[in-house]
């Protein structure tokens, strides 16, 4: 990674604040009082399943949608009355929205030329930023003539060239193949570190969100379920939605009965829970196979490279576990295992 320094770039980071945002499309209420605060200079992800409203929220910040009530602040300024052009934001769209009739150079310079910047200066800036992003050779071509990865960098360059206060990305990597996505993610993180701009990133891919973000907001059906660092989200999910949405393979959810300090059908390291029935989530990676108080039958193996996902049947429930070493295990065999306390989440108590 070459050092990313861009002339005239000083960190112009502004925080973003959303206050009581409500939004309706016809009869459908998308948001009913959403609050969110994003600190200056952080890389913040909005993550949730499709239909959760994350893209709509991003478009409200951009000014492409107008909320029905509530306020949007960029820095200290309320921007509700301003159109997208006046908010000084940069945005990368899901399929990039590069103007197909303009060259890469014209695409990158368009935010400057439209403001009346001298063409010379705009071209100089564009060359510089294109060089930094590794698309210097594509400047004379049209978007249709360059690869998907290059298009994505052109979109980044176009969004960055005007030194936006806030940088918005709407699933920018979803059109890239897995290999490219991995390097693009790292690249974005480096660019963001270097430029230091406040970045809001929308994705449905929870592992992507956890891996690149400073903080994450988990969204489901128009509600923000939890805001926190990736670590907090993973270790202490605030509710069942968050707990089940985060993690791959997903959380094992089961019913547990506790009586006299012992839990069935799974013996879990739970302390301080009263007797009764509980819904429990157990992270697959917290199951340690080999020895322990629990016994289950291995029903299937899914080889996943470095590790293997082992399906375990216990008391009519199927659980997934992750094991590094499965030599000596076979289908139908009984496996002993223990559960690490950090991977156990109490999701709720059920009827007495």
């Amino acid at each position, binding site marked *: 990674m070459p050092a990313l320094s861009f002339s005239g770039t000083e960190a112009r980071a502004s925080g973003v604040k959303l206050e009581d945002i409500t939004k309706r499309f016809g009869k459908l209420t998308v948001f009913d009082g959403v609050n969110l605060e994003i600190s200056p200079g952080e890389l913040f992800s909005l993550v949730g399943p*499709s239909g959760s409203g994350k893209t709509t929220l991003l478009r409200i910040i*951009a*000014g*492409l949608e107008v909320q029905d009530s509530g306020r949007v602040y960029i820095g200290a300024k309320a921007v509700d009355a301003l*159109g*997208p*052009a006046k908010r000084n*934001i*940069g*945005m990368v*769209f*899901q*399929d990039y*929205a*590069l*103007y*197909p*009739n303009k060259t890469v150079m014209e695409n990158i310079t*368009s*935010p400057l030329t*439209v*403001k009346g910047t001298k063409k010379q200066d705009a071209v100089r800036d564009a060359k510089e930023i294109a060089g930094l992003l590794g698309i210097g050779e594509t400047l004379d071509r049209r978007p249709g003539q360059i690869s998907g990865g290059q298009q994505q960098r052109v979109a980044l360059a*176009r*969004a960055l060239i*005007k030194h936006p206060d806030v940088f918005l990305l709407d699933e920018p990597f979803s059109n890239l193949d897995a290999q490219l996505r991995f390097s693009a993610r790292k690249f974005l993180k480096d660019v963001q570190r270097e430029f230091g701009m406040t970045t809001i990133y929308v994705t449905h891919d929870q592992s992507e969100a956890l891996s690149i973000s400073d903080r994450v907001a988990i969204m489901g059906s128009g509600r923000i379920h939890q805001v926190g660092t990736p670590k907090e989200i993973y270790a202490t999910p605030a509710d069942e939605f968050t707990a089940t949405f985060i993690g791959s393979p997903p959380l094992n959810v089961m019913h547990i009965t506790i009586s006299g300090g012992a839990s069935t059908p799974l013996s879990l390291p739970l302390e301080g829970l009263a007797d009764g029935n509980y819904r429990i989530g157990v992270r697959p990676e917290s199951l340690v196979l080999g020895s322990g108080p629990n016994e289950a039958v291995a029903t299937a193996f899914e080889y996943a490279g470095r590790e293997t996902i082992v399906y375990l049947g216990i008391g009519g429930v199927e659980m997934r576990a992750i094991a590094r070493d499965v030599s000596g295990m076979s289908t139908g065999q009984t496996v002993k295992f223990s559960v690490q306390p950090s991977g156990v989440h109490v999701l709720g108590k059920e009827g007495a």
Partner: protein
Amino acid sequence: MSLFAQADFGRIVYNTVFFAVGTAAVSVFIGAAFAILVDSRRRAKRAISLIAYLPYMIPFTASALIWVTLFNPGYGPIDPLLQSIGLPAIDWLGPSLQLYSLTMVGVWASIPLAFLIILAGLSSVPKQVKEAASVDGMEMWDYYSSVALPLAKGAVITAFLMIMILGFGNFDLPYILSGAGGVPPVTMATMVVYAYAEMFYANLAPQGLAAAIFVALLASIPGLLLVRATVSAPKKERRASRLPRPSFRLPGSRRAFNAPFRYALYIGCALVSLFILFPVYWLGLVAFRPQSLDYLLPPVLYPTKIITDVFLQTVAQAFPEIVTTFVISCAVTAITIILAAPAAYIIAREGKRLLLGIMIYTFSLPSIVFVYGIFSMMVGLRLINTWTALIITEPLFTIPFVVWTMTNFYNSLPKQYEEAALVDGYSRIRSFLSIVMPLARPGLIAAGMVAFIFSWHLLLFPLVLSQTPFSFTFPPVGSNTVTTFAILFDPDSTGGTISNNVWTQLASSGIILAIPVIILSIVAQGYLLRGLYSGGVKG
């Protein structure tokens, strides 16, 4: 005093409805057959399309004229063809059959529109659905009856309603087939021709206006249905890439139909192809042969001697009209695009459905409704017989249609480009001018061609706004256009002052009318397809 006794009123209503509904029903049936044939084939798609599309290239005025010669008792070529296969000669334009003959010409002229719209509907069936159907073992009949046609239902309905609307409002065909001027025979007069005769021949404006309003009410029925079908169609959701789920019949349930269906389709389309091609062949044949070959018994059906001097002489004669029509059409096209493109953009982006509904409804109103008001205005403004009169009135017909098709086009244009432009700092107007307009260029070109063609072959307005009707002078002056020039050669015209019965000149003027339309429609074919019918199947 009425031209028609009250008793005839019912007959004229019957003629009008019969012509509009009959034309729509038969041409949609034939158009659907050709669309299925083209859609189902891998090869020769273009050639078959060209046949089905051919009548579209011949303006109504020209096709009516050429059919007049085809129908000519004795010297027309159809009767000997019928007799050669043992059928009796038919008095096509006689009182008992003329309504059916008129409808037949209407069908001939309307097949292309039905074909284009239905083919667009069939081709918008997602490829995966088509592939899934063939993997499931569906053959032709199974696929079209249970999957493709149900999915393209919207296109079939649109085609039917549009052709019915054009049938109610059609002036050119019944006017020319009933003898271009004078009192149209009650056995074939449609309400539009009746209204025209009342207004401009009998000088009975109130009665003509009443008839015009009556036909407007008739046309409003399909017009409002078309508005409903188009405007209230659920908005396409960009994200919903879900495939439509047709109700697949159990495989094999109608298996027995597949083979007969295929044979019937091929034989039927082959026969209809002859019906489509022969008048075009006749047009070319008659235009380029000495007129001494026209009135022979039995008629000569094959080229024996080819000459071009009559054609060239007709071009020279028509030169003032060609220039007039060209200038007027260009001006009308420019005005149409300048006004319609932004209007369509706002309708598409702001979802102004009411405005779109008004446009489609305006399009569905027969031009006879407007003609008297405009005629009076132009008399008042002293603009009769000027280019200006036509230039400022013709956009009345081109704008609604172009707004409609351009709205479809803008709807299919991804919104993200404009949003990116807004984020980049463009103003709405600037993003429209420098981002949207360049992207919309193919749509604008197509719309421009449509406007040009519309204007090029308009007959009613030039007829009314040029000089006084029925006092044709020669050589023509003022705002006479190629269409008014061509009808001078109508053999049955009561208003013609030049030598009648010159088929060579008639056909030549028909070709002059058709040439720009042929050129433009070959270029625009793909665009027209896209513009007329988009969506409906999706979402």
